[in-house]
């Protein structure tokens, strides 16, 4: 049984590691094209940015992610900017940013470099924590 427990632990660890590695790879790829990405051409310089990918049919976006971002903006005001992208209207942008589900949020630092990616709903606390670590 101990052997199977170890195998299960390894499978879970590999799964988690693969997920984290995929997210890191996404961030690295996005970082490569971010400086000349048209999506970021209008963002305010020296301000951390949240890039929020959504779709019109995404229930968690409407019920959880959108309110979390509204609260974030209410609390942080000008200290953060949020760029909303409808992935159905801009599928090329979603592909370029490695987005395969909604909601997906990217946290960009003051220099416009992507530092975090959240696949699925990211709470206000989580976003604040990520922004605070920049």
């Amino acid at each position: 049984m101990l052997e199977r427990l170890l195998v299960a632990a390894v499978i879970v660890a590999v799964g988690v590691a693969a997920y984290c590695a995929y997210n890191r790879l996404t961030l690295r790829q996005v970082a490569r094209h971010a400086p000349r990405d048209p999506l970021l051409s209008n963002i305010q310089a020296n301000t951390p940015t949240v890039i929020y990918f959504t779709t019109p049919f995404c229930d968690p976006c409407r019920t959880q992610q959108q309110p979390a971002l509204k609260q974030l903006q209410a609390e942080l005001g000008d200290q953060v900017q949020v760029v909303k992208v409808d992935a159905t209207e801009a599928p090329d942008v979603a592909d370029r940013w490695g987005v395969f589900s909604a909601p997906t949020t990217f946290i960009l630092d003051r220099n416009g470099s992507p530092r975090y990616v959240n696949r699925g709903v990211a709470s206000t606390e989580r976003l604040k924590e990520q922004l605070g670590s920049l």
Partner: protein
Amino acid sequence: MTDANATRRVDHSALRTNQAFIIGLLIAAFVLNAPALVAFVAAVMLIGTALPSVALFKAVYLYALKPLNIARPDVRHDNPEPHLFAQGVGGAVLTVASLMFAAGAAGIGWVLAWGVVALAALNLFAGICVGCLMYYTLHRLGVLGFTRAPIQQ
């Protein structure tokens, strides 16, 4: 949102409880080398899909976790059908896994069971419901029976 949609609600805490039980029991089944537990989870999922009112893991949530304040209700405007479909797909995969165990192909059975664990974990931890995406894709393709469109604001 239409009036009809306004009355459609799903308690996502119940869904998360369901996913947590599925993940926990399937990993326990692997550790204990108990294919019967996989068949049990398959049966619970398929019965819960066909008769949601007698869904076992949901009942644990409703009659134990919720009254004891271990899990708080998280009721949202949502369609229950895609979630039931996702559960049904998971139950079907676990049924195939059980048949594989019975046929002596335990390796394939465990791969299928771990696949269900992965998809349930993706839903529980990242909020990505692959079965729901399948349901809405089939709806957009006009497949018979997939009548519910995503609820919009």
